[in-house]
């Protein structure tokens, strides 16, 4: 694993909120140009890990390394040009239009004197086109559907033009069609633009389908990391989630598909008399 | 009380009755203090003589000043405490208080209008009731009707309070004649109590208390939600109307008598609930007894703190109530959705 080049990595981190320690001695690397997805049961520390990687949480021990240097020592704005982060469930300011919101992603590249360049304009238009929200440019964000809104937020993160983009549960609160839509979009960004994506996901099967690199966590520790085919096994799902299951091939993509085991019942099952 | 639940612990009713008796004793004590303490201190013996013997030197001060003031504190305190408890029950809102919701301010504004603009010289109480009724409805409309959250109601009350008090102070500043009469209308005070003030508001307070006690049971059912209440045989619309009438009568009358007193109605039901639990049939009587205890104690404190002049009781209750309010907010009372 050490041989894979990695711009962003956490080394021997202890992650904690005020009193509660979430993870100790946690080491993880994000392979360059991968679509890394972090999975694990609730409260296993996956969102916390993502926040540490995004410099939103300072490790109490260890460090997050960006291009080999401690990310905490780098100025906020400089980090913001390399690592983008979309937190869970963001709230748009009242009445802001799609174009205005996406344009705010240009902030780390602007200054008092350099407020709005042709590049900015081009990049914002590109981000909206990539996410399919160009038609909505002048609509207020609060009028959009959940799926549209999430695409707008992703467009904003894209406009930030960072080689690394972290997404915290980008599919939460979306129905299944919109979940697939958002994940397809992420996969496309990863393939076409060669960006490194890191996402926290709840759905194991979606993670297995879209990830190029999967990190499975439990109780603040990485249990397994690697290609989905290597990571997602019946034994691992049992170990991480405590769920007995079978793993079969996804009939669509051939990626691993987790099918939870049916509870064993004694006696007859709903047999008509 | 028909069909008491089988599982009710034995002796609970007895304990509650004993507590109520103890509270009454406390009330008597505070009332005695309220008669005794003031610009001229009276000993217990002097209080006794002043109360009963017309020829004693203390008779005048006791009967002309201290007694009406104490009685007003009793009546207004009971009214505000019960009004607060009913408000909290009917809005299902731990931050409910007639003062906080602007109902007292509505009564003030109506009286100010009647006095200064329309030139009325009598019948304060009717205007106060009208103002209280209008604001009771308005604050719920602004706060979101049935869907109101505690926070929204509190905000709506704060907004209405601001508007109404600005209006009252404008009226006061513009009309020097009514300034004298309305002076205590921005901060509550018991200082101007006269015997006839107490007598004038008494019928309204009694009526309000009776309505409140009568709605206690259905209000308890309403606490479970409208659908559950209906299933239990209560009629939510009717219960709400009756409760609103009680709140209007009680806070309108109290405000007419001693100006807007904020927070008494918030404070007392919360303290009492710790003793009685949420059962309104006990909560209301306890509030009726313990709210005057608080108000009179605050009034005595105000007299002591304000020496040689006098601090208005409303400032004392505002500080006490504000602290409790913050405590409730800290516990998350306002963030329920």
């Amino acid at each position, binding site marked *: 694993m050490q041989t894979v080049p990695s711009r962003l990595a956490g080394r021997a981190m202890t992650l904690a909120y005020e009193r509660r320690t979430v993870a100790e001695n946690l080491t993880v690397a994000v392979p360059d140009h991968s679509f890394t997805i972090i999975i694990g049961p609730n409260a296993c520390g996956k969102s916390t890990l993502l926040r540490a990687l995004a410099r939103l949480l300072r490790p109490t021990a260890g460090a997050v390394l960006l291009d080999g240097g401690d990310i905490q020592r780098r100025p906020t704005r400089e980090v913001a040009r390399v690592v983008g982060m979309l937190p869970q469930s*963001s709230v748009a300011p009242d009445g802001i239009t799609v174009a205005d919101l996406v344009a705010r992603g240009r902030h780390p590249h602007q200054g008092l004197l350099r*407020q709005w360049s042709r590049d900015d304009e081009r990049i914002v238009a590109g981000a909206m086109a990539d996410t399919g929200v160009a038609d909505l440019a002048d609509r207020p964000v609060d009028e959009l559907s959940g799926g549209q809104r999430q695409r707008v937020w992703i467009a904003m993160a894209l406009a930030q033009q960072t080689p690394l983009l972290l997404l915290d549960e980008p599919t939460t609160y979306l129905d299944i069609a919109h979940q697939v839509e958002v994940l397809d979009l992420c996969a496309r960004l990863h393939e076409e633009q060669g960006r490194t994506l890191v996402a926290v996901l709840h759905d194991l099967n979606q993670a297995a389908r879209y990830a190029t690199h999967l990190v499975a966590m439990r109780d603040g520790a990485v249990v397994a990391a690697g290609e989905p085919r290597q990571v997602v096994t019946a034994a691992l799902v049992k170990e991480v989630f405590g769920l007995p299951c079978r793993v079969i091939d996804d009939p669509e993509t051939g990626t691993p598909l987790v099918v939870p085991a049916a509870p064993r019942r004694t006696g007859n099952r709903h047999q008509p008399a | 009380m028909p069909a008491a639940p089988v599982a009710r612990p034995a002796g609970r009713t007895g304990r509650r009755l004993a507590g109520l008796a103890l509270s009454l004793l406390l009330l008597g004590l505070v009332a005695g203090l309220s008669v005794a303490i003031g610009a001229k201190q009276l000993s217990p013996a002097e209080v006794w003589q002043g109360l009963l013997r017309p020829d004693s030197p203390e008779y005048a001060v006791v009967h002309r000043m201290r007694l009406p003031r104490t009685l007003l504190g009793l009546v207004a305190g009971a009214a505000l405490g019960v009004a607060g408890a009913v408000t909290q029950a009917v809005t299902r809102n731990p931050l409910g208080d007639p003062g906080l919701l602007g109902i007292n301010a509505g009564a003030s504004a109506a009286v100010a209008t009647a006095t200064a603009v329309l030139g009325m010289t009598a019948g304060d109480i009717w205007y106060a009731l009208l103002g209280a009724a209008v604001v009771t409805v308005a604050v719920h409309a602004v706060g979101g009707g049935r869907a109101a*959250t505690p926070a929204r109601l509190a905000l709506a009350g704060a907004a209405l309070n601001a508007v109404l008090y*600005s209006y009252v102070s404008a009226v006061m500043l513009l009309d020097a004649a009514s300034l004298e009469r309305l002076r205590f209308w921005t901060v509550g005070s018991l200082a101007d109590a006269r015997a006839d003030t107490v007598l004038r508001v008494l019928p309204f307070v009694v009526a309000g208390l009776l309505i409140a006690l009568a709605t206690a049971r259905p209000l308890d059912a309403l606490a479970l939600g409208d659908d559950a209440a209906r299933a239990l045989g209560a009629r939510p619309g009717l219960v709400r109307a009756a409760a609103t009438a009680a709140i209007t009568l009680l806070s309108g009358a109290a405000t007419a008598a001693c100006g807007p007193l*904020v927070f008494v109605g918030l404070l007392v039901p919360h303290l009492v609930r710790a003793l009685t639990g949420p059962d309104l049939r006990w909560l209301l009587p306890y509030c009726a007894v313990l709210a005057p205890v608080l108000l009179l104690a605050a009034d005595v404190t105000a007299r002591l*703190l304000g020496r040689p002049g006098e601090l208005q009781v409303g*400032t004392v209750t505002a500080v006490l109530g504000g602290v409790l309010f913050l405590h409730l907010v800290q516990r998350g009372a306002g963030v329920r959705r």
Partner: protein
Amino acid sequence: MIVLRPPGGRSLRLRPRALAVGAALTLLAVVLGGLTLVGVDRPAPDVPAILAGGGNPADRFILLDLRLPRLATALGVGAALGLAGAVCQSLLRNPLGSPDVLGFTQGAATGALVVVVLGGGSLALGGAAVAGGLATGLLGYALVGRHGLAGHRVVLVGIGVTAILSGVNGYLLTRAPLTDAARAALWLTGSLDGRGWVNALPLLAALAVLAPAILASGRALRMIELGDHLATALGVPVGRLRPLLLAAAVALVSLAAAAAGPVSFVALTAPHLARRLTRAPGPNLLPATLLGAALLVAADLVAQHAIAGQQLPVGVVTGVIGGSHLVWLLAVGRRSGRL
């Protein structure tokens, strides 16, 4: 949107509507200010001539020593309140998070009243007001802190703090010497009567220093509106910036309170109206500042002339206007599902 690009890689983004609104508000403030100077009910003194150094002594006194400082105080107080309100609402991501709802204004009043009771000059008054405002801010911050700044809790804490402080203020009033008590009571409603340069100058000086600094951080504020995490991810040092901006806002509000008393609701209302006028998202700092100034001068004109022969304190007028606006906000906020 218009983008100006002078040579040298610089660029400037302008919204025509915001520009027009700004210009209109400036014009409004100037016209209202002129009206204040000329006077509505008295024969107009020849204002330009007096300002240039002419005119008879009586007119000069009325204009230079009465009306001009009053106008300067009104403009300064309005601008400070509008700007501070916009900063607070934006920082707290809460349309109701204005300094008067949060209790800062009352805290400043308490500080100032302490000086009135103990005796002290106008400098001490200003200092005590700022100290009172900051202490209230810290108290509120401590009470809210654990639960985060967004949402209703902030406002509820403000209501509680305001209630306590108004009680304390009532107590202080009874402790003040009788001659000062009447003055202090009037001051507590917020008034511009008899304001001289002594009142205006400290506030104007603070505005001259703080306003440019705050306006320069407008871009960062726009990012903070998206949430702390996102703002950090976009390169804004939120942890460092927020206390600084809050402190600046509290200082402005407190100095405004020291100059004119706790004038209510301008800080709440001006940013909302500014946003409605410009229809631009974001804190709208400059429009809010201008609108606050115009609003207060207008309210003062109303207070002076609405009822013939009577003067109202300006705080009464803003209380009625702003309170009604808050009621309206709540009613509308319910419909749109916000708040």
